[in-house]
Each structure stands twice: as structure tokens, then as C-alpha cells.
């Protein structure tokens, strides 16, 4: 019997904010598209050439989706710290453990929610939000020449932009997986104030290193892992090429190569660490009953 779908549904029942907040944001974006906003000014120069136009087009559609993913970078850590801690705090772990569900299944269901179900679900949600908001804007600005031209639908560019976002999302998930596993481990282990236990050890390690050796390796390692530079695959510097908005945006997008992260050994090392941390979390949950 495959019980994973039910374990995932269980997570969405308990942690409703995981899907309620993205839905509310999506709703707000669509509603915002219905109301006039005077600030949208497009310089005819910016969409003068097809390249410039496509760059701006891609930027516009990214702007519809990226806020949702930034939001996830807050929601998911919160979820991960809480999920195995809450069941011990309210003692419901004694109920969950009275059912034939293994600790491995439980821990993996939580990891799956954070690393696959919610990111991909929100990605699909942003596709709908983007299409809906764009359609509303297209109808509203039907007569206006500048905006009308800008809103001209370019399926190929749209698909390429969304494909790029999806690739970056998958790489980000893989890159941040060890951090997710770390938070899950703390969630299963901490007796109280799981949040502090998640944050203090890295800070303490940085401080001790600074005082004892005067070096910053821990901080550098954390900064490297926390920055999304590798998974997004940004090549070169943003300021390399000066230019008007459209050209600049096009150039930016040209230089995002998320899939290059697959060739980065650190991505795979991170995944190996993830496996080890998850294994440890399962072991810890096996002898946990209540805090």
C-alpha cells in the first residue's frame, strides 16, 4: 500500500500556510492587474528592437513569479523547523506512532513536501497567475498602443522564460537540500526552542573560529551555500554590459545557466550531506516520543 500521498496530504492539513499564503499572493497579483496603475511607463526605445522587446517581456513575466519563490525561502525553513518539533510538543507523536507508518516514511514525507510538492506546486500556481494577470492587462490596455505592443504574446519566449525559472528552481532545491535536511534534523532533535537551535550553532561556530583562529572559513562556507549563485548559474557580472532596460534584461537572462550547477561538485557533495542528515533524522525520530 502506498501511503505517501496521504502523508503529504497530512502535512498540508497541518501546515496550511504552505498553500494558503501562495494562493493569497497569487490572488493579490491578479487583483492588482485589474486596477489602474499610473507608474507603468515604457520608453518606446526599450522595445524598439525584437531583442529588446523579448528581454523586457521575459523580465515582466519573471516579475510575476519570482516574488512567490522569495516567499518560499521564508515559509519552507519555518515549516522544516516546526514539523518534527510540533508533533513532540503537542504529544501527537504518540498518536502517529500508534499507526503502521515508519519513521523513514514520516521524515521523507516532510522532506518531499518542502523540496518537491510545495516548490513545484507554487511553480504551477505562478504559471496560472502569470497568464491570468497578463490576460487582464491585455484586455485593459487593448487600445493603448505602447502597452498593447508590450503585451503582445510571444509563446516561445514565454516558454523559454518559464523553462529557465523551472530549471533554476530545481537547481535551487537541490542546492538548498542540505540546509533543509539540517533544519529537519534540528526539528527532530531539539527539546525546546528549535528555532534557536537551528540558528545558534552556525553562529557559535563562526564566533569560535573567529576568536580561536581569526579565520572565516565557516562564515565563507555558509555564505557560499546560502547564496544562490551556483544553482542559478549566473555567469559574469551584472554590470558588465551597460545598456537600456530591454537589452540589459535580455543580456541578464542570456547569462543565467542554471543547469551548469549540475557540473558543480559542491552540488553533489551537498546532496551526499543531505542523505546523511536525513538518515540521522530518521534514527533520532525512532527513539523520540515526546519532549
Amino acid at each position, binding site marked *: 500500500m502506498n501511503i505517501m500521498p496521504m502523508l503529504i496530504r497530512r502535512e498540508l492539513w497541518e501546515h496550511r500556510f504552505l498553500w494558503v499564503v501562495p494562493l493569497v499572493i497569487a490572488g493579490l497579483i491578479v487583483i492588482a492587474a485589474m486596477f489602474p496603475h499610473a507608474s507603468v511607463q515604457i520608453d518606446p526605445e526599450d522595445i524598439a528592437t525584437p531583442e529588446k522587446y523579448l528581454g523586457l517581456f521575459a523580465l515582466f513575466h519573471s516579475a510575476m513569479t519570482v516574488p512567490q519563490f522569495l516567499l518560499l525561502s521564508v515559509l519552507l525553513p519555518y515549516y522544516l523547523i516546526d514539523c518534527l518539533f510540533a508533533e513532540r510538543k503537542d504529544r501527537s507523536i504518540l*498518536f502517529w506512532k*500508534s499507526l503502521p507508518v515508519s519513521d523513514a516514511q514520516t521524515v521523507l514525507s516532510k522532506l518531499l513536501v518542502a523540496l518537491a510538492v510545495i516548490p513545484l506546486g507554487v511553480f504551477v500556481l505562478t504559471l496560472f497567475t502569470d497568464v491570468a494577470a497578463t490576460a487582464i492587462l491585455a484586455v485593459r490596455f487593448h487600445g493603448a498602443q505602447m502597452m498593447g505592443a508590450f503585451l503582445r504574446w510571444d509563446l516561445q519566449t514565454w516558454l523559454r522564460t518559464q523553462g529557465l525559472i523551472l530549471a533554476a528552481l530545481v537547481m535551487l532545491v537541490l542546492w538548498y537540500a542540505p540546509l533543509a535536511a539540517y533544519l529537519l534534523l534540528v526539528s527532530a532533535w531539539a527539546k525546546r526552542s528549535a528555532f534557536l537551535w537551528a540558528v545558534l550553532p552556525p553562529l557559535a561556530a563562526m564566533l569560535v573560529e573567529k576568536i580561536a583562529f581569526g579565520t572565516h572559513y565557516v562564515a565563507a562556507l555558509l555564505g557560499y551555500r546560502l547564496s544562490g549563485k551556483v544553482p542559478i548559474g549566473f555567469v559574469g557580472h551584472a554590470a558588465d554590459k551597460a545598456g537600456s532596460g530591454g537589452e540589459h534584461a535580455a543580456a541578464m537572462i542570456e547569462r543565467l545557466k542554471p543547469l551548469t550547477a549540475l557540473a558543480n561538485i559542491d552540488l553533489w557533495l551537498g546532496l551526499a550531506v543531505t542523505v546523511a542528515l536525513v538518515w540521522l533524522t530518521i534514527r533520532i525520530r525512532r527513539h523520540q516520543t515526546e519532549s
Partner: protein
Amino acid sequence: MTQIIKARALAKSYRGVRALDGVNLDIEAGRIVGLIGPNGAGKTTALKAILGLTHFEGELTVMGKNPYTERDSLMRDVCFIADVAVLPRWLRVHQALDFVAAVQPRFDRSRAEGFLSKTDIKSTSRVRELSKGMVTQLHLALILAIDARLLVLDEPTLGLDLLFRRQFYDTLVNDYFDKERTILVTTHQVEEIENLLTDVLFIQRGRIVLSTSVEDLGARYVQLTASTEQARLARQLQPFYEREVFGRVALFFDGRAPEELQQFGEIRTPSIADLFVAKMQGEAA
């Protein structure tokens, strides 16, 4: 008889304190066993070990399985209510039914719904909206709809009023128990369950101090109630415990024939509650 639980030299320490100190257990199918002991005697630790919730030393098998390493597969045949009110507060009643139905192959949803229809619990309610008694009813409805071979109850009625407690045990015996199943229960309210039990286990300081069926208990223990003068004579037969009740003395004997004692006063089989007190106080003295 099929053996459900077998323990040999079961032990568990918490930071140097022996919570279980060499426990031997043999529990067979079709019994209702009361595990009775004072606070801190090791009851909950023993149950946790049996349910795979804690690591242990020594040998312990539940239906032939090691509960600690095989908890998930064991839980197909075992269900438990550990303490009261551990259902998560955010859970809705219909979600609880959905969840258990999906993960527990032996769960009969219509049976659980049947139990719930006799209560005031609405299927859209969240656990946090229910009274303590209703939460227990819900938990019991879920558990009793599972066709399990072993049911473990740890203080299942703690904090409930008398009506709920009575109802709880009535449901347990009338709607659930049969010769195929085994129930292991701990409680402080010994009087309430003493008529249900087929076996009793007394546990003290991590050791089993008495393990007997209720029938054998009547053959082995005698309570004599006698006047102070008669009691003086009866003391020669070495009671292991005595106490004064309304100017008369109750003496407890182990392994004395009733015929020997009849001459001194009234004799009867002690209640489990009285025997428990006698054993615990007697051992301590």
C-alpha cells in the same frame, strides 16, 4: 495458546536510574491484563518498550517481532492509546478517519463512523473544538475500528468523569474484546477495571512482583477480617500485611488454605485494589 508478549530480563535505565530491572513477562492471546504499580514503578516504560517507542536491554518480542526495530510493521496488529488526548489539535474528525483508513489496512471505516454516530462529535469538527471526553471517544472510535490483535492502553481514562470512564470500559468489553484479542491496560483507578481483568501484573521499582491470573489469585490469597483478639492468634500464620479497619483487623495471607483461617473470622478473596496496597505496603515494610 499463542504467546503475544514475551520478555526476558527486560531492562531500561534513564541516566543511571533503573526504570525496568529484569522484567519477565508472558502474555497470551485472549487475556485482559492489568499492569498495576505505583507512580514511577516502570509501567509506562514497560509499555513504551512493548510499543517500540524506546530502546531496551534484554529480550522482548511482541508477536514474534522486536518492537523497536519493527515498530511500523508491528503496528498493523497492535494499537494503543498512550495516555489521553494525544490527537493533534488541528486535526478534523473526517481527516482523522481518512488518515487512519489510508495507513492502517485493518481499519474498518464504517465501524468507526458507527461509533461516532452514537456521540455528539461532528465530522467537520477539529480536535481542539471537542471536550476532553469527546476526544477520548474519537480516539476510541478510531482504535476500536482497527482489527488488531493487541490493544495497549496507558491510563486511558485519566481526567475523564465517571460517566465517560464507565462508558469507555463498557464499549471496550462489549464491542471489542473477544478470545482472539489481548488487552494490556495500566490505570490508577484499579477498582474500575478489576472486574474486567483476567490477569494482573504488579510492578514495583522496575520489577514484576506478582504475575497471576485472577482465578489463581483467589486460590492463593486470602483476606481475613477478624477482631483484635482473634487477629493476635491469626498472626501466627504469618500474614504479609495487615491494616486496621473500623476497630477490626484485615490480615492478608499468601498460600494459606481458607479452612485454616475460617476459625478466626470472615474470609474472602481480597479485591485487586486491596491486594495491590497489601503487596506494595508489605514489600516496603
